[in-house]
């Protein structure tokens, strides 16, 4: 297909889609309306189960099955990346030369690293109480670790981040989510049903029954997934080279 034909097709299709989208927008319930039937029911169910952060309650209790699906996508994507970014037969690893880091960058990065790491872990741990949870905290904690690459160099990062360990952690976290779900079956209720543990006191760390545990499993999963992903890309960008003459 020639470039002009493609642009012409895009123009026609885009105009049609835009018209349909605008027509749909005009029919969607107005922005800021008062009635949110699903939202109100979700809030009531969350309060009944002593979970202060309703979003976490929806994710890890009312729609925990959906989160299982999301986690599988995440796991499959990481698996695909690891396979695609592995070292091929016609490639070798070249040790990166230690690079000079400007002193202010080094000082600032090494100062911020522990703060960011603790923030990530705090966000995971308080997922059922305040905004945050496994998904957000996992990303924060994992990216915080990579400040070491800015502050020191790639070899230092590789030493604190053995990729194999994080790959195993990733799988273990995925398994533990499933096992927590199956525990419900063994106890005689439904898969991933939040009836196993006492709901605890509202607005304390141990409230919400199964929510903190599933939240922690997701936090571990996301953190190790991001570390493994970035390790694959960093290896490709910094270390792995094609063999000469191939």
């Amino acid at each position, binding site marked *: 297909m020639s470039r002009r034909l493609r642009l012409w097709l895009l123009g026609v299709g885009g105009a049609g889609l835009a018209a349909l989208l605008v027509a749909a927008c005009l029919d969607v319930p107005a922005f*800021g309306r008062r009635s949110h039937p699903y939202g109100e029911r979700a809030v009531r169910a969350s309060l009944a189960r002593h979970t202060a952060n309703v979003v976490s309650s929806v994710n890890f209790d009312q729609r925990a099955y959906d989160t299982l699906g999301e986690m599988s*996508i995440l796991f499959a994507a990481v698996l695909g990346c690891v396979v695609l970014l592995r070292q091929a037969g016609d490639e070798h690893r070249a040790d990166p030369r230690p690079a000079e880091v400007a002193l202010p960058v080094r000082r600032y990065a090494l100062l911020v690293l522990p703060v960011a790491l603790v923030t990530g872990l705090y966000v995971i741990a308080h997922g059922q109480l305040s905004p945050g949870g496994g998904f957000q905290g996992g990303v924060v904690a994992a990216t915080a670790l990579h400040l070491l690459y800015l502050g020191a160099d790639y070899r230092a990062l590789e030493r604190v981040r053995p990729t194999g360990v994080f790959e195993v952690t990733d799988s273990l976290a995925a398994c533990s989510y499933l096992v927590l779900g199956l525990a419900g079956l063994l106890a005689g209720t439904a898969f991933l049903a939040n009836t196993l543990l006492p709901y605890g006191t509202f607005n304390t760390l141990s409230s919400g029954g199964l929510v903190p545990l599933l939240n922690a499993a997701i936090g571990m999963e996301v953190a190790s997934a991001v570390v493994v992903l970035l390790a694959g890309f960093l290896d490709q960008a910094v270390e792995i080279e094609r063999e000469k003459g191939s």
Partner: protein
Amino acid sequence: MNVFPYLVAAWIFLTGCYGLVTSRNLIHAVGCLAVCQASTYVLLLAVGYRDNGTAPVFSDLKPGTRPLVDPVVQALALTDVVVGATVTALLLALVLQIAKRHGTVDPDELTELRG
């Protein structure tokens, strides 16, 4: 104001699609796809917003004192933000493989893909 946020979401989606089709670099195309994804989050959260509502978090709020925005759409958007990033990573890994196998990241030069 009634439909403005929805129209913004539609605009972001359409610009992302335009970038995807006209892109001459697969990495740029993946970036455009990330823009398309962003439009769905804007749409979802706009659907769940309520005038004078507050966040559905009770750590410092007494239940029943204020109207709340819809937590269900927030939960949908929240998981997709993180999972979408890993899918972006998978696409970038595919782009790196294409660059290795074919020596180019321009979709127009990938003649083997032509039907």
